[in-house]
């Protein structure tokens, strides 16, 4: 090939490839515009303040202009008309009038933040987050909140993937990153370098919480003590704990297929008897469960064949219970009683 022919080939390929990419981007932009104007497919009502009364708070993933916004349905009619706010959140949780929203502010400088709202959805405070949101929980008394985010290293700094889990007071200083707590596995303090901590759930007792600790390919359910700043292992292979409203049971996800492609099922541990019930499910569950009541769990599952859309399912905590679709096009459920 002569130099000229090479240049001609390069120009042709460049034009084709760039043309193709620009055409795809234009088509994709058109699709996005169309989706924004499309009817959501579920009954929706725009609102500034969500209706009072017991409800389920969640992130709306129905198409349309309310996509990604905080929404609610009445607890007694979850399939009914959803009220959608104009507050965008990746994860949302509410307890005792304290409402936490973890969000991604996409932009040239994409930043992440935790925003605290009061019961009237007025912003109280915001905290920058070091990575993209994964889990958020508020304590039953509304005085503490915990956030977990994924911190990713830049490609020039590999091997820096980790989770950052921070517990904060709503009215005071941050209690700190769980990495700084003493980790006790089977009674012995260990300090593995690759340890990761995530998925906090708060007990009624204001000093106690549960979370997940991981090192290598092992995970543990750990019990946290805020005053002593310790994390003590309770059980192996249990992630993203969630304590029941009556405080007697803990639900978590359990990996039934160790290896590179985990398959998680939900399981419930009875704290008094130490009996574990595994809730076998047709699809892997990768979420921190939320208790609908003392015998039913809610959790999100990505919708099959759709990218960026999820559904909230419910399952009774008895072995063999069949999961039911609870709220369509929804994610990050939080039950407000």
């Amino acid at each position, binding site marked *: 090939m002569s130099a000229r022919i090479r240049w001609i080939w390069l120009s042709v390929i460049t034009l084709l490839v760039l043309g193709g990419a620009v055409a795809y981007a234009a088509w994709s932009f058109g699709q996005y515009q169309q989706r924004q104007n499309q009817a959501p497919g579920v009954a929706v009502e725009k609102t500034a303040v969500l209706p009072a009364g017991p409800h389920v708070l969640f992130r709306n993933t129905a198409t349309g202009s309310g996509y990604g916004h905080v929404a609610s349905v009445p607890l007694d009619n979850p399939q009914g008309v959803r009220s959608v706010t104009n507050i965008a959140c990746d994860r949302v949780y509410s307890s005792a009038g304290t409402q936490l929203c973890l969000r991604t502010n996409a932009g040239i400088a994409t930043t992440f933040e935790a925003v605290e709202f009061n019961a009237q959805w007025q912003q109280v405070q915001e905290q920058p987050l070091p990575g993209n949101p994964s889990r958020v929980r508020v304590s039953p008394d509304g005085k503490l909140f915990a956030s977990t985010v994924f911190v990713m290293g830049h490609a020039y700094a590999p091997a820096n993937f980790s*989770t950052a889990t921070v517990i904060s007071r709503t009215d005071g200083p941050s209690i700190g990153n769980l990495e700084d707590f003493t980790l006790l596995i089977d009674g012995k303090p260990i300090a593995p*370098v*690759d340890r990761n901590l995530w998925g906090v759930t708060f007990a009624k007792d204001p000093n106690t919480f549960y979370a997940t600790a991981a090192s290598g390919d092992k995970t543990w359910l750990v019990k946290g003590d805020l005053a002593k700043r310790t994390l003590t292992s309770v059980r192996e292979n249990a992630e993203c704990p969630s304590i029941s409203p009556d405080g007697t049971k803990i639900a978590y996800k359990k990996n039934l297929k160790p290896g590179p492609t985990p398959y998680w099922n939900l399981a419930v541990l009875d704290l008094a008897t130490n009996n574990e019930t595994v809730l076998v499910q047709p699809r892997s569950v990768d979420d921190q469960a939320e208790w609908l009541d003392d015998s039913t769990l809610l959790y999100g599952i*990505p919708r099959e064949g759709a*990218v960026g859309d999820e559904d909230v399912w419910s399952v009774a905590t008895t072995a063999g219970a069949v999961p039911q679709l609870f709220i369509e096009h929804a994610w990050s459920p939080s039950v407000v009683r």
Partner: protein
Amino acid sequence: MYLSFSDRSGGKSDEAIRTSPPFKVSPIIISLGIVSMFTDISSESVAAVLPIYITGVLGLSMVAYGFLDGINQGISAIVRIGAGWTADKSDRHKLIAFVGYGLSTLTRAWLLLASGFAAITAIIAVDRIGKGIRTAPRDALITEVAQPEHLARSFGVHRMLDTVGATIGPLLAFIVLLLIPNGYHTVFVVSFACGILGLAVLGLMVPGRKQRAAAKAKLELAAPSTPRAAFRWRELNNPNMRRLLLLAGILGLLTIGDGFIYLVLQSRASFAATWFPLLYVGTNVAYLVLAIPLGRLADKWGRMRVFIAGHGALLAAYLCAALPATGAAFTVACLLLLGVFYAATDGVLAALAGQFSPIASRASGIAAAQTVVAGSRFFASLGFGVLWFMFGREQAIVFAAVALAAALVGGLVIVRGITTSNTVDAA
């Protein structure tokens, strides 16, 4: 397209001191730089949005992904040495590099179809393998076509273009997402397009073995064509190479990774916490601005000296992060120092390894040096993690700084015999 980097400004003093030919960057190096630029736009645009895509869009958690990272690093090291060796054995550097770039580009198209955990982890592994394959053969090509007297500066040109791509990539991705929220597939398509452009430039504009041989034959009409020496590992076992690997290994063991430094900064300064996702831009800007000047300095003053001095900048970055002051100025200074560190060490290491390897085993020599650095830095992050836990982050970073200062003194002793051997051309 053909940028002229020939040195005219301030060249007078050069000529007075040295008789080396004026610097003129080979068009092949510019082409390879553009290949890397497109590839970095491609890979960094995806890397920037992948965490959000995996967690926020696919609804997967990434914890198991972290476990796999170590395994991927191991695979990458083995693949790197293997690809360097294969390139040397077959003398098909361009082909091997093309396979590496091609594999990574394929993963962009694959991302459009993937929605499960297994597919995502496989994609990341294949991308890593592609990166492992291409680096050493490409750096061997750069060494082959660069003027031996200006080797580090030639690498500087390549690394500058590479870093331009690494800086543009994430910005491009976020512009797409700003225009089309949820437009992740558009990011992947744009990334795939950039990957194809990189491959096209490599395939069309970088001459392969036969063309280079033909071009060489034209230049050296009179010279009898000497048969290429066979590859031998033994050739790499020379005193200079041994000392380089020892030095790079020791300094690598004390290079804790900028991720940790970012975390230290983030835990101390609210400025760094707010701009955490953008800290790398500061580092990249310093890197791309300084890549050529520091390469030039390395050629003049000594590549080993600059390589060691670059670790001095790293030491200064540690101290800067360890200082109790928390102003934005300290954060920025720390980021710039990290950029200086990369600019003074990354291309210079490849230049040194290329310089100390005979032609027939150059890709293996470069791969060996890069693997030693990658491996020792991996152990450095593990070790630093332990220190971090036992003594807290401030003490840990002070400890790392003291150890690095000691290692720098040791390094000066190790390289005593070779600092002045820049002009020795292994060819």
